[in-house]
């Protein structure tokens, strides 16, 4: 299973972190720091897999963003690269040629999308269509419950009190 996924920029700024195993905040920060340093120091043509503690690190760079996953010894490194790629595709399709800014400003969406694709460190749904359909349905629910309300609020018919 995957233990965690980190997204960070070339400047080493963490953009998204997903932990599938419980760690203390201190530990998470240490792991992140170690890996960011290690991966940023690597040259382009190097192998995308690194032995790290008893796990394997698989990473790939897309434009200014690094995607980095930790998987177990028995997991498949090549397919992990494609997990990263599929996730990038999902983000790309949803945001329309995704860039780092999209992920910064819509970090919650990035999390929701990841949850639809992977759950508990395992791949849940590999079909791009199905994942995007689920996210689109969520967006629809958002509009349903928010549009009418703001309209009513504007008209001053109801106050924004407790439901």
């Amino acid at each position, binding site marked *: 299973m995957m233990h965690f996924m980190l997204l960070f920029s070339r400047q080493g700024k963490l953009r998204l972190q997903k932990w599938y195993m419980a760690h203390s905040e201190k530990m998470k920060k240490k792991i992140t720091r170690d890996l960011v340093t290690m991966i940023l120091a690597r040259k382009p043509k*190097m192998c995308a897999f690194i032995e790290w503690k008893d796990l394997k690190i698989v990473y790939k760079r897309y434009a200014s963003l690094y995607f980095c996953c930790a998987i177990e010894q028995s997991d498949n490194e*090549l397919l992990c690269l494609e997990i990263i790629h599929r996730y990038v595709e999902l983000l790309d*399709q949803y945001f329309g040629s995704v860039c780092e800014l999209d992920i910064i400003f819509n970090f919650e969406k990035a999390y929701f999308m990841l949850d639809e694709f992977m*759950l508990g460190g395992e791949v*849940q749904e*590999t079909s791009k269509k199905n994942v995007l359909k689920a996210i689109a349905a*969520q967006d629809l629910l958002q509009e349903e*419950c928010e549009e009418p309300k703001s309209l009513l609020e504007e008209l001053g018919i109801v106050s924004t009190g407790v439901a």
Partner: protein
Amino acid sequence: MPAVKDSMRGLAVFISDIRNCKSKEAEEKRINKELANIRSKFKGDKALDGYQKKKYVCKLLFIFLLGNDIDFGHMEAVNLLNSNKYTEKQIGYLFISVLISENNELMRLVQQNLKNDLASRNPVHVNLALECIANIGSKEMAEMFAPEIPKLLVMGDAGDTVKQSAALCLLKLFRTAPEMVPIGDWTSRVIHLLNDQHMGVVTAAVSLIEALVKRNPDDFKGCVSLSISRLARIVTSSYTDLQDYTYYFVPAPWLSVKLLRLLQNYPPPEDTTVRNRLAECLETILNKAVEPPKSKKVQHSNAKNAVLFEAISLIIHMDSDPSLLVRACSQLGQFLSNRETNLRYLALESMCLLATSEFSHDAVKRHQETVVTALKSERDVSVRQRAVDLLYAMCDRSNAEEIVGEMLTYLETADYSIRGELVLKIAILAEKYASDYTWYVDTILNLIRLAGDFVSEEVWYRAYAAKTVFEALEAPACHENMVKVGGYILGEFGNLIAGDARSSPSTQFQLLHGKFHLCSPPTRALLLSAYIKLVNLFPEIREDIIAVLESDANLRNSNVEIQQRASEYLSLARNSTQDVLATVLEEMPPFPERESSILAQLRKKKPAVEDAIRVRARKAAAEAGRQLRPHLPLAVARGVKLQGDIAGAESNTDSDLLGLDFGGSAPAAAAGGGGAGGGSVDLLSSILDVGVSSSSSSSAAPSAASGASAQRKTVVVGAGASGSIVGEENWHKFVCKNSGVLYENDILQVGVKCDYQQSSGRIVVYYGNKTPAPLAQFASVINLPDSSLTNQLGIQVKPVGDRVGASEQVNESSEMDSATFFQHWKQLSQPEQECQKIFQAKFPMDAETTKTKILGFGFSLLSNIDSNPANFVGAGIVQTKSGNIGSLFRLEPNQQAQMYRLTVHSIKPGVSKRLCELLETQI
């Protein structure tokens, strides 16, 4: 592309502000301002609506993800879970998944919300709850939800997405607390999800099934043929068949890989049809590898090769089909010169495993040249590392000189990060495959020359020490300590220099024996040990040595130690076969246990997953075993089987080779003396003789020179209720507690930790060394006092020295209300089911302490049942292998008289009485 709805403008503004901050300080200032703002909003009089709450919670989340601490807002996030609006709920759950830790006091509220949402008729709410549990599932959640979730998984009408999330949610709970996930009807139905029409459901379910299979392969055997047929359908389908589950022209790569993984939990199928079907699948996958690619994209080749590598893993795992193994090898051989670094890396890695199979070992060897080239030309050190691993794995007698030579050449330029391991590998290979000693000595000396700093003592001291010591002994005058060292080293490793005519076996012996008459008795005794080892190393000089041993000067020496050794060794030399000698006098173990990545690789192919404790215990056992290795028949005779009650009489004088004082500083003699003095026959301590062992304490790093103690100790630990040696009160402590110190003195601390799941329990005994020195010759003996008890309890002793597993009865608390309580109470009121005792309180009568003790005992406390609030009333279940025994109790304290009245009712006669007796000792 759907327009991304900018739903929270305030959030976007805040994020832009942060991004526009020019300095770290400015950013901090802006964040603090925002935190103050949110705090005042949350504390303000004006009630916030759901949208505002969501927005602020989201901002807090963002601030947290920037790396700041967040110490408020949790309550508001939990409140969002109550909302009927999906997005508010969703943000609430996100905040909780990211920010709330397991022991947060709000967890109960969260769990209540999860419960409500799981029961919701709206599948999107059910899904949110499932995803949240899958993200943060804890043991407590497992207890609460594990019985419910299987229903969602196998129920016909649950939607596909719910099934997918339920499978992975259950997997998370299973990984967190396997004992909480009940085996039931659903387990047999879950494997049929492999046939599900929805590929996403299958993909999610396979992960769950694999975890279940690992726990109990036999129960899920049916999944083998189901997976194979599913796999067959995928690999034979064209890429258009599977629509969106085809990834860059590769049909369902994720599912294929998961299925191939699942099959690696089983041996090759017995049924010929199924086995052939699987072989066909694997062949198809291998065939596809050589077809021209359908796309030039790296995604295509990655996905295709991911399946291929997994198939090869399965082929290696089954290790039964030579033709598949050889095909796999040639395929990997092609990857060795692929332009993709990743592929070369993986090919080297996989080939390591192929090299261990007898069928493909030779096929792997054919690629030696390519691998050597990789070692020389790869730019990435991690790939070179893999090449070293592979060379190591493919090395055998036929190619050892060549491979070791290449490794030595590489060592000259190797990266510092891998030199240590490289040196170790060279040394191991050189020793393992040495066909002539000159080559071995040259190799080791080269190793020292090239990378002296990285050559650990263990590597060089054998050949080098043997050589040096030999030279030193040749000097006309030499110190007695040198003779000791020489005796030890030549006895252990004299064979390594015997190839040299100048240090032939008989020369070595003559050299040592030439000093014999000049030495003190302890040294002579030691030399006798060296001689018997030489008998083992060089049978040709056996007669010479026998002559020395049987000479009156030794056999009738006034020194008892010399006399005994001479006579014991004499009979060993005369009467034993070469096998016995080789076993008794086996040489010191070669190298420290060191985690080499290659060994880890090899181990990963073995199905047994060892938890940390076991590994540690094994290491401790290995450590102890190493210390215990019988160099001497004396040690064999006296060694391991000390018993607590007789050991006081044991003398312990073999402060021999291990304790040998290289620097003259080791307190071995003193230790031996102490033992010989008889020790105290203190049964209560049962800890006798002198020292304690390495055991699981981390201070142990025994090396020959610091093996300060030929000391040993035996701790007799009785199982469960029958332990008598350590003292009743110490045992009784564990009636209400699961861990604690069982025994402690200046040298040793013995701790116990128990862990019960239903009717089985595990008792782990820890030995801690309190002395600064490592302790040698440690052994633990498990005494099971009488066999009927053993049968009743079904005790399983794990094969590690210091770990005892025993299954014991354990109470599980149960909850009930007043009416049920009294109903049960009355049902169980026949005389033999009831037991009442009135007794003096043994401890201060403090309600809180008593409460803790009762809970620790395993009873639940039920309040509002007894009319007198001072009374304690509760219930529990004693779980045994043959069934569960419900029990109820009532404890009435009488403060004035300092007395208790305890009444226990339970289904089985006898149980009440025993529970009563046990509880009585505790309060």
